[in-house]
């Protein structure tokens, strides 16, 4: 995957895209092979240790904290809060500045995804598309991500906002040198924001390269047609 770029991962349903994200982020362990990240073998690390190395992911089916507000669901995505300690949590002066910054960033993200007016709501009160947007808002909160894996960010999102989201991802990627891997079925929208693309079929990569070229690859077209 090219560093600091947006890479698109496509493939028919069940081709193994989400499974790949699960294996990279440590949610599933592979039956064989190893996962190398920045020269380090991370195959045996747990998800939280991989996060510490800069790997962030979102879930295709949102995994939200059902009893936390929209606001809280998002702010929890911000790591490194000094107040998250059974001792330091007692002393507000130790974490209040960090918390304020996290709050204003959270409002910024929610403003962007159009959820700000719902910030006091619970995830259960949101529509399907809004849940996806909340999942995305949380994914954009970590402080120093290196590799962000996003599983279908614009599924169920209206086209105008979908374009804005992808444009913003591309901007973040370029400005902060973050690598994005985006799984998407809405190829019409996604293709123009990607720098590179992979296509998967039956658990294997069948094509890679410049996004439009990958889309036109006969093997890819065949796999989508279900041959």
């Amino acid at each position, binding site marked *: 995957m090219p560093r600091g770029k947006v890479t698109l991962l496509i493939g028919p349903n069940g081709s193994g895209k989400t499974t790949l994200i699960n294996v990279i982020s440590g949610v599933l362990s592979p039956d064989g092979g190893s996962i190398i990240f920045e020269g380090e073998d991370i195959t045996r690390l747990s998800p939280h240790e991989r996060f510490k190395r800069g790997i962030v992911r979102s879930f295709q089916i949102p995994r939200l904290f059902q009893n936390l507000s929209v606001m809280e669901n998002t702010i929890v995505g911000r790591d490194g*809060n000094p107040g998250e300690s059974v001792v330091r949590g007692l002393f507000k002066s130790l*974490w209040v500045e960090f918390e304020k910054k996290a*709050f204003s960033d959270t409002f910024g993200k929610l403003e962007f995804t159009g959820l700000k007016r719902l910030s006091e709501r619970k995830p259960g009160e949101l529509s399907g598309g809004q849940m996806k947007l909340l999942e995305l808002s949380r994914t954009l909160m970590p402080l120093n991500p290196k590799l962000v894996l996003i599983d279908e960010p614009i599924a169920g999102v209206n086209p105008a906002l979908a374009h804005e989201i992808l444009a913003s991802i591309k901007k973040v990627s370029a400005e902060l040198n973050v690598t994005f891997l985006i799984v998407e079925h809405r190829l019409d929208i996604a293709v123009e924001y990607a720098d590179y693309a992979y296509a998967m079929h039956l658990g294997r990569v069948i094509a890679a390269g410049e996004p439009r070229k990958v889309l036109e690859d006969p093997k890819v077209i065949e796999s989508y047609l279900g041959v």
Partner: protein
Amino acid sequence: MASLIGRYLRLQSLLIVVIAVVAIILAFPLLGLTITDVFSITTILIVVLALNFMAGYAGIPNFGMALFVYIGAFALAGVGTRIALALVEIASPGFIELMRSSYPVILGDSGSFEVFVRVAGDPMVNRIMSREVESVIEASPILSLTLTLAVFGFAMIAGALTGILASLAAVRLREDYLAIVLLAFSELMVSVVFDQTDALAGGPNGAWVVRPWLKINALEGLARLLGTIPDVLISLAVGLAVLAVCFIYVERIANSPMGRMLRAMRDDDLAIGVYGRDVAMTRLKIMAIGAAMASIAGAIHASVYILVKAADTYDRVTWTFIPWAMMILGGMANNWGAVLGGIAVYLGRKAIYYYSPTIASAISPILGIEASVAGDILRAQLPNILVGVLIILVLYLRPQGIIPEKPSRTLSKKDIEELT
């Protein structure tokens, strides 16, 4: 609008508090409550707050609370008695020798090590010597304070270590398995290990504790006025102080980024792990803290109940299931709710207990049994049956409890308004 709702909510919680206070005051004459009841409520509230910290906030379904409470009682009954004997022997050398000559029949040929085993392990030796030791301790401020610190220090550390031990095998498990492991571990330790090993703290016979409190004559008058004894007043004062500290601790954590993270972990531990939080380590810490709180409650409780038996005094109904009922009724992940639920369930049980003879004499002709028999059955069974019914009703009708969970208030309203 928001401030109006805020004011309404504040008014509502104020109203709840006022009603609760009035109900409690009325409860004294109506239910025949005594200082001992106030003391019992105090200790059980510490346990409910600890449980709420672990289960309500962090999602650790601790069905082994009784063990952690017992560890504190053991700190007093099993360990405290021996520390007390050692302190007395150090302060006035020859004490053990004196005991040997005073009680030649039971202690005559015991070596010093054996005396230390039997002082908490053998019912006869324990009963006689705990009183003798206590009379030396209660006369000396230094001994009394040293023993207090030793016992509570031990209760806290042993409680925390037991919490860690219990969770080491279990923290990586899924929630339902975790609940079963904790229940089984607690039963194994309390009903088998402690209740069947005489040498630890008297086994099934239990052990008399050495109360660590100093004898304060000035308290006599007040104690008589309240229908109790000075030692109970000291236990109560210590209990209230510990309750206050525990409440402030859990409430502050609840309204810090830590509280928010715990609630998130409870809702989805996989997702919080993906966002870089070490779930196993967090659970371990929460178990250690919650268990230490419960243990201290156990030590305070044992200081009033004097003769403590493992499985008999620290049974799973009183110290695990009833605290769960209190927490569920009051509202999980809400500390005020836990306190309110604790008081409500305690008073409810007390009311049934108090009025069961009256109810019994009313229903006994219908059932064709003697009033006293019906009264005994009601007293023994009705409170627990109703706690069971209460849990089911609350879970059906108002699963969020009396006071529902609220977002963690890390920043003040003013701060938040400035940020938006």
